[in-house]
C-alpha cells in the first residue's frame, strides 16, 4: 500500500513536471508568423510592427505595446478607410501589405535576389533578428556591421556564414534563435549594413554590460554604446 502510494506520488509528480516542461518547450520554441490576420487580442512582434507604423503615420494615439486593443483597432480602421480598404479593424493580408509589413508568403522570395550583395542578406538578417530584437534600429544595423567587420578582419573566419556560425560566437546561434523568421526591420538593417553603413566605428565585438559573463571582454577598448549593447574593437 505504502509502496504504491509512493509510486503514485512519484508518477504524478513526473507527469506534472512533464506537462510543465512540454508547456515551457512550446513557449520558448520560436514561432514564425503563420496567421496573416490580426485583430482584438492578438499579441506579438507583428502587432508591435503594425502599431509602430500606425504611430509614425499618426493613426495610433496609444502606446506601442504589442497588444491589439481598442486603440489599435480604431487606428487600423482609420488607416483602412484612408487607403480604400474595408474598414473592419482587422489587419488582414491586404492591410498588412499596405502597411508594408511582410507576411510569410512574400517573405519566401525575399532571400533570393539577383544582385551580388543580396546573397547573404537573409542569413545576416536572421542573425540580426536573433541577436538584436527589441534594439533600436541603429543598434540592429550595428550588429550587422560587427559581423561584416569580422569577415574583413584577419582573426575571424572570412565569410559571413563562417563568422555567424563560429562556435560560441553568438548566443542567438547557440540557442537556435537564429532560426526565427527575420522581421522587416532586420532585413532592412542587414541591407544597410551590407551597403556600408557602420554605426560602430569599425567594432568587431559587442556585449551587453548587464549580462556579459567574461572578464576578458572588458579588456576590449569601447568605441560606441548603442541601445543595450557596448561595441568595441581590439
Amino acid at each position, binding site marked *: *500500500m505504502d509502496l*504504491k502510494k509512493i*509510486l*503514485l506520488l512519484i*508518477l504524478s509528480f*513526473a507527469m506534472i513536471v512533464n506537462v510543465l516542461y512540454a508547456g515551457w518547450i512550446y513557449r520558448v520554441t520560436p514561432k514564425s508568423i503563420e496567421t496573416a490576420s490580426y485583430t482584438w487580442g492578438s499579441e506579438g512582434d507583428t502587432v508591435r510592427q503594425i502599431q*509602430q*507604423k500606425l*504611430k*509614425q*503615420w499618426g493613426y495610433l494615439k496609444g502606446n506601442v505595446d504589442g497588444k491589439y486593443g481598442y486603440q489599435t483597432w480604431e487606428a487600423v480602421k482609420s488607416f483602412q478607410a484612408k487607403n480604400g480598404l474595408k474598414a473592419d479593424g482587422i489587419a488582414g493580408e491586404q492591410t498588412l501589405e*499596405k502597411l*508594408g509589413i511582410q507576411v510569410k508568403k512574400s517573405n519566401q522570395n525575399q532571400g533570393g535576389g*539577383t*544582385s*551580388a*550583395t543580396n546573397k547573404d542578406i537573409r542569413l545576416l538578417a536572421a542573425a540580426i533578428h536573433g541577436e538584436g530584437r527589441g534594439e533600436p*534600429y*541603429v543598434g540592429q*544595423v550595428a550588429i550587422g556591421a560587427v559581423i561584416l567587420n569580422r569577415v*574583413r578582419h*584577419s*582573426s*575571424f*573566419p*572570412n565569410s559571413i556564414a*563562417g563568422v555567424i556560425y*563560429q*562556435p*560560441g*560566437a553568438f548566443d542567438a546561434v547557440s540557442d537556435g534563435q537564429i532560426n526565427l523568421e527575420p522581421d522587416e526591420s532586420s532585413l*532592412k538593417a542587414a*541591407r*544597410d549594413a551590407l*551597403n*556600408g*553603413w*557602420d*554605426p560602430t*566605428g*569599425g*567594432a568587431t565585438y559587442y556585449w551587453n554590460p548587464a549580462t556579459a559573463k*567574461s*572578464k*576578458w571582454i572588458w579588456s576590449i*577598448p*569601447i*568605441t*560606441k*554604446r*548603442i541601445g543595450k549593447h557596448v561595441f*568595441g*574593437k581590439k
Partner: protein
Amino acid sequence: MEEKNNKLYDWKKRLSSVHMYSITMVALALALGFGIYQYKQKLNYRQYLQNRFQQAFYEATTYVDNVDNLLAKIKLTKEPQQSAPIFAQIWKEAAAAQENLGELPYQHASVSSALKFLSQLSDFSFSMTNKAIDGLQLDEEDWEKVSRLQMYAQTLAKELNDIKKDINDGKRIDWEEVEKGGEEKLGKEGATKITGSLSEVSKQFQDMPQLIYDGPFSDHIERMEPRMIRDKKKITKEEGKKVVEKFIGKDKIASVKLTGETDTKAEHTIPVYSYEVVLKDQEDPTIAIDVTQQGGMVLWMLNYTDKEKTGKELTLDEARKKAEKFLEERNYPNMKASYYEKVDSTVVINFAPVEDHVIMYPDLIKVKVSMDDGEIIGFESLGYIMMHHDRKLPEIKLTEEEAREKIKQDFKIKKVNLAVIPLESKREVLCYEFKGEYENNPFIVYINVESGKQEKILQIIQNKDSVLTQ
C-alpha cells in the same frame, strides 16, 4: 462534504487495486524507456559533434604541418618562377588551416592571434605569388618576413603536434571542456592544462610583430588615418549640433539630441559625436547621425522612418538628380554616380568625385534616396573621409591604344575613362577604365597606365533595379 469524502475514498480504493498497480508499472516502464532512448540520442549527438571537432583539429594540424614544411622549402628558391608555385601552395594550405582552426570551439581570446597569423600568412603568400608572377625578385625585406613567419609556423605546428601526441598517449580532448574552460581556468596557478588547449600559442603569439605587405590583411590597413580630417581642428558638441542642423535643414528639425561619443581610449577609429534627430512632424527620433570630432564632417546618416506609400514613384533618373543636388549643396562638388541598387522603394547610389576627367573611386560616398518622395534618407562617407585628398597622379606612360592591346581581342569596348581605383590592400593605381561586353555580358577592365598591368576585372550585374559590380 460527506459525499465528497466518500468519493475521494472511493477513488483511493480504486487506485490501490491490483489492476491500477499494473497500469502504474507499465507507465513507469514506458517513461523509463523513453528516458533511456533520449539519453542514448543525446550521447549520439554529442559523439557526432566531438567527431566533427576532432576532424577539424586533425585537418588543421595537417595543414599547419604542410605550411611549416613549405616555408622551409621556399627559402631555398632563387628565381621568382621557382618561388611562385610554392607560395601559391602556402596561400592555399594556410587558408585551409585557418578555416579548420576557426571551426573549433576555442574561446576566441586564446585562438584569435593564431587565426590572425594564418590569415596573414595566406594573404602574404598570395601577394608574394603575384609579385613572383610579375617576374619581380623578392627583396631582403620579403625574405626577412618569410623567416619570421616560419618561426611562428613552427611554434604553432609544435603545439598542435604536442596535442596530437597527448591523444596518441591515450588522452582525449573533451571539446565541451575546451569550450567552457576559458582563460579563467587556465589563468589560475596550478590549474591543470586542459588537453587540447592552445595556451602556449596564445601566449607566444601575443606580441607578434606587425606584418606589412600588399594585401587586405596587412597591418597597415588598420592603422590608416582619415586623410580628410586628420589635420583638422577638434569641434565641440555644440558645433557638432550645428553641423547636424545644417546637414538636415534647420527648418525641418524639431530637436537634436547628443546620444553618445566615441571613447577616447579606442584606437584606430574615427572619433565621432552621435546625434538623434526628431523631425517636426514626428514624435520620436527617426534620424541617427554621426559627426566626426575632428573637422566636423558628417560620417553617416540614416533616416529610418517608414514612409507611408504615396502610390507614385520617382524614376531612377529623378532619384539620382535629387542625390546629386543634395551632395552639391553640402559641398561635395563634381560627384559622379556609378553603381546603384534599388530595393523596395529606396535606392542606394554610389558616388565618386571626378577631377580633371579622372574618376576617384576610393573616395566613395553612398546616398540613399526614397523613391516615394525623393527625400535623402541615408548618407555614408567613410571612403571619402578616409581617402579623399589632392593626389599626385603618376605620369601616363601608356597610350590608350597601347592599353587596348593588353585586353583580349573580342572584348567589345564601349567606353573609356581614366580612373584611380583602390586595390584590396588599399593601394591606389591609376588605370584606363574600359567598359565593354564579352560574350554579351558587361564587364569593366582596368589597365594600369604605367605598367600596362591588368589590375582588375569587374563583372557588371545589371537588371531593372540595379547596376552592381562583382
